């Protein structure tokens, strides 16, 4: 009887969860015939924080900074600022800090207005502010991701592809600054591997350098370019799979300087 049930269970499971389907065990990534999907998806900070938190609770509250946003006519900067503010919203969610998330929800709306996409974002921004007030973190997280994606979709629709790349870049930068800061405060070789992102930086660099010159004119964008170049050499694990404490400190400083430059320029 036991055998029968065992057989039944195995049969049912194998019809649902099976081994990976027939596929080549190795592919040559240099093969010129390979077709890559061009859309790059940037991880959201919470995706990275989820991994770090599995090693133990982190003090995410320390990463929240109350920075004022200053709007100007530079849409490229505004797009990066938008990505940054959304990523800071994710940090606020991780820290479950109601006030900071409510403030960031309002900042998101102001930036969306400046980018001409407030109609699309308003509902999400209100949900963020209200959800944070009620401590509904799951919903706030979802709304933040939706806000980011909604703006990206709208930019694509408006053929503002350069702004899409800058929103993504700002979002990645904000998350990386917080991650590097947490790792700097509480370094562990095991956790440092989360900064191993050479291919992702290469992609961000490609996207940034591919922008029309008018979209990256000025000192701020020279700094963006230089920082990406610098980070590409730092965010690469060594033979042990770790990134040294010294490099983590450098990453933390470089990302922090750039974030401050975006806010203050």
């Amino acid at each position, binding site marked *: 009887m036991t055998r029968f049930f065992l057989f039944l269970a195995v049969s049912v499971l194998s*019809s*649902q*969860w*099976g*081994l*990976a*389907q*027939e*596929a*080549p*065990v*190795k*592919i*040559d*990534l240099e093969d010129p015939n*390979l*077709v*890559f*999907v061009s*859309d*790059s*998806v*940037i*991880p*959201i900070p*919470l*995706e*990275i924080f*989820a*991994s770090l938190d*599995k*090693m133990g609770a982190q003090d995410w509250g320390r990463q929240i900074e109350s920075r004022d946003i200053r709007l100007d006519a530079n849409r490229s900067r505004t797009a990066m600022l938008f990505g940054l503010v959304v990523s800071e919203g994710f940090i606020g969610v991780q820290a479950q800090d109601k006030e900071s998330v409510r403030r960031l929800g309002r900042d998101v709306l102001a930036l969306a207005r400046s980018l001409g996409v407030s109609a699309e974002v308003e509902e999400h921004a209100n949900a963020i502010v209200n959800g944070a007030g009620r401590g509904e973190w799951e919903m706030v*997280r*979802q709304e933040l*991701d*939706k806000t*980011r*994606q909604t703006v990206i979709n709208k930019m694509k629709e408006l053929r503002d592809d350069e702004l899409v790349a800058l929103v993504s870049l700002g979002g990645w930068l904000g998350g990386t600054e917080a991650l590097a800061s947490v790792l700097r405060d509480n370094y562990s070789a095991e956790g440092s*591997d*989360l900064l*191993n*992102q*050479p*291919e*992702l930086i290469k*992609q961000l660099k490609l996207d940034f350098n591919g922008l029309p010159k008018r979209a990256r004119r000025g000192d701020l964008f020279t700094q963006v370019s230089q920082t990406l170049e610098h980070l590409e050499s730092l965010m690469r*694990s060594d033979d042990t*799979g770790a990134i040294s404490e010294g490099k983590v400190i450098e990453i933390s400083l470089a990302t922090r300087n750039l974030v401050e430059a975006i806010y203050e320029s």
Partner: protein
Amino acid sequence: MRVSLFALILVSGITFTTAQEKDELPALDNPHNYIKLLAQDAALPALQGEEKFILRESWWSGRMEPGKAKLIQVQLFRRNAYQFWLAVPNRNGEPIINVYDSEGNLIPSESLNFEGTNIVSTMIQPEITGVYYIRVSLKTTIESPQDWAVIYAYR
């Protein structure tokens, strides 16, 4: 299935035009949105419960020919688990999804087939943080090219 899909469409708030024929599914303004909803419908059970995955809003879509694979580059993080769902509209599509590491080696994964044959899913737990490649393809048993959509979630 069709009832839950319809509910999902309403919940997602995606606009669609009125179907001309009553028996037709609603015609979404972008066919990939409809295919994405198929994938989301299949993903719903994994997004609930104690060990639930968190669905990302970002997704990929396109069109592919039978036997011609496409690769999606994605950064994944150690200690997390990731699940990907690939959907095509045609039930005879037999989509295939696999994950490769940065050297092009196939990553051992668990795959899940759903009712019908037009949605497939795979779950991996990356052993190192880094770039991975999602390989999507169609079995050669189908002749016509298919639109497709991939969504993913982490936990």
